[in-house]
């Protein structure tokens, strides 16, 4: 493997490749900064730029765009509460709170550091384990995928803490919204009311922009202007203590991200939500989650990036795209006359290992570019809110329009902006709704396939050991904390009764 690695770095570390990788990271970051344009759109839009390049150089540049766009989405999630893609939604929860407290620089820096560490860990795993892991991922059929989606929904609901009913309600409302459009399996139009626009469903990118960006603008207008953030440049820098505090979250996020990223579909989104949910339970600073905990940014960002790399496991080893962006990249492979799959590692070692080495280089460039720039980006918040929020409305509308070049998208943003405002006013969680909406089509696909595998019997889920294990874990997540809480409450009550009884007895004695 070492020989292959050396070959990879020899391929990637040419001046030309480094320059294109840098350009890719830079362009990707700029694309990711625009609301509505995530890494998938970034790679798709900039794909024609690479047509004149050598295949290795082109793929290296596209990988740079991929990472850059992901980080660009993080910047808007933190600064403006506007996630570029579903996987960045969780980052808004604590990242935006940090920004409001004048710690946007620290949030952006930990996102870059966490992403970098996650990338290195996941790349090492990817290089060492890609072929065997791809075989393992193949054991995940529709039944296991269905169980995994249920686990994802349970985790995101369970991290709502006391507001379990509302979290579950919002997640299932998201699922329900995802049923609008052409039905998976039958191809029948469902809840479209004759609208052509609704045939392709309620677009989740526009829903995210509406809920998070416009919803926040309307909410801020109602709650009133806050004191402008006047943090000094020095205060915008991340401290060593904050980095050390975030390390466990980064490592846990990287592990979770890599494992889930190998699964085709919503791997990155599930990974970011799950890692946040788990971190919220196990972190020492769990009480600070939701109000600007740095671990709440470090964990999903690491998971997100590790999942992005793990997405390449099925893409490279099997030729099955791990996510939407890797699907576009798979298209790029075929444009360059390459056939991803088990033979790619043998037939094109220079290309595969060059690409893997370029992931490393892309992440180094991303860190070098964005770590010093994090406090600079954070200065954006110094702009008076009277100018900032019309700009947010403008970029939200144009970003939404550009997703499908259709005014329908802008209307969706407006409608969900109002819904987001109402949800914020009523303190209803928005993240479960987005996850439900994103997972909905995949969930239904897995449901239809599972039902077909079982000849109509959904109980087939209980005959698959992996699925049973996943569902048992989901059940434990819901029941164990309640049982523990009930037992603790019972013990505390009986102790209090015993103490009261002893006091009463001693007062009678005296």
């Amino acid at each position: 493997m070492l020989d292959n690695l050396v070959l990879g770095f020899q391929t990637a570390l040419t001046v030309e490749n480094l320059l294109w990788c840098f350009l890719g990271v830079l362009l990707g970051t700029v694309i990711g900064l625009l609301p509505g344009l995530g890494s998938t759109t970034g790679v798709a839009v900039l794909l024609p730029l690479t047509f004149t390049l050598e295949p290795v150089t082109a793929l290296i540049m596209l990988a740079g765009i991929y990472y850059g766009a992901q980080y660009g989405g993080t910047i808007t999630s933190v600064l403006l509460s506007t996630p570029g893609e579903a996987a960045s939604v969780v980052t808004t929860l604590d990242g935006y709170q940090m920004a409001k407290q004048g710690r946007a620089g620290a949030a952006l820096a930990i996102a870059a550091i966490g992403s970098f560490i996650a990338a290195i860990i996941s790349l090492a795993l990817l290089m060492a384990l890609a072929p065997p892991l791809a075989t393992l991922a193949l054991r995940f059929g529709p039944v296991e995928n269905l169980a995994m989606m249920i686990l994802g929904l349970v985790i995101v609901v369970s991290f709502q803490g006391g507001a379990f009913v509302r979290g579950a309600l919002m997640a299932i409302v998201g699922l329900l919204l995802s049923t609008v459009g052409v039905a998976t399996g039958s191809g029948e139009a469902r809840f479209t009311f004759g609208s052509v626009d609704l045939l392709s469903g309620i677009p989740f990118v526009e829903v995210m922009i509406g809920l998070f960006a416009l919803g926040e603008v309307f909410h801020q207008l109602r709650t009133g202007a806050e004191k402008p953030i006047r943090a000094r440049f020095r205060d915008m820098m991340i401290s060593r203590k904050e980095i050390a505090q975030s390390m466990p979250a980064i490592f846990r996020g990287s592990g979770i991200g890599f494992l889930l990223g190998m699964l085709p579909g919503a791997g990155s989104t599930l990974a970011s939500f799950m890692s946040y949910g788990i971190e919220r339970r196990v972190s020492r600073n769990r009480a600070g989650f939701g109000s600007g905990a740095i671990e709440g940014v470090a964990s999903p960002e690491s998971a997100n990036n590790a999942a992005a790399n793990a997405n390449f496991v099925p893409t490279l080893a099997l030729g099955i795209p791990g996510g939407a962006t890797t699907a576009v990249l798979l298209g790029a492979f075929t444009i360059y006359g390459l056939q991803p799959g088990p033979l790619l590692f043998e037939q094109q070692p220079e290309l595969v290992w060059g690409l893997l080495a370029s992931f490393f280089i892309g992440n180094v460039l991303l860190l070098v570019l964005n770590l010093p720039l994090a406090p600079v980006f954070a200065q954006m918040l110094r702009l008076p809110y009277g100018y900032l929020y019309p700009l947010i409305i403008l970029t939200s509308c144009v970003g939404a329009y550009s997703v499908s070049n259709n005014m329908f998208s802008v209307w969706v943003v407006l409608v969900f902006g109002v819904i987001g405002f109402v949800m914020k006013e009523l303190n209803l969680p928005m993240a479960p709704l987005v996850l439900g909406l994103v997972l909905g089509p995949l969930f239904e696909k897995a449901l239809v396939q599972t039902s077909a595998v079982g000849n109509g019997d959904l109980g087939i889920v209980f005959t698959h050991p992996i699925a049973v294990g996943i569902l048992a874990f989901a059940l434990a997540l819901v029941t164990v904390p309640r049982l523990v809480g009930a037992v603790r409450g019972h013990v505390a009550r009986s102790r209090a009764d015993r103490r009261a009884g002893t006091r009463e007895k001693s007062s009678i004695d005296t």
Partner: protein
Amino acid sequence: MTFSRDTARIAFSAVLAVVGAAAVVGGLGYGLTNDDGTVHTGFLPAVAGGAVLALALVDVAQSVRSARRAMPPGEPTSAGAGDAGSGAEDVDVLGRTASRRNRMLIVVLGIVLGAVLLVPLIGFLLSMGALMLAITLGVERMRVRSSILVVVIAIAVVWLVFGQLLGVPLPTGLLGLI
């Protein structure tokens, strides 16, 4: 937690309960299963709708209970205890009262709606430019010169990045200018 917010939450959950019930009916209409017993078009909407209905009703019950607990016995249950009602003292850092902020919100919502409706007439960029000017000058009372500067730069950047670099066909409306 105020009484008015609880009422709003109850109303919101009640609306969701109705949506859930409608989804169940719709799902049943599409059909739950095929002849061979496999999942059909209406299965997921019906199941999800049923779950929404049940959870929304639980949420309504919880909200009613919390509203009752928040209300000391014998106190009138009329509106006025809400957020807006306490607006006389609720002033933000710019000196805006709650009622003024509520008016601003309605005006901004109206401006956004108006701008989107204007797109087919004057085009996307001009509508958005008008939206930004209306907000910065009309609502926020920012300086005229700096507002115009911000708007011109923002629209130019959008035109350059989206219209020219990314090739997004931004609607030019009936005017057909930009």
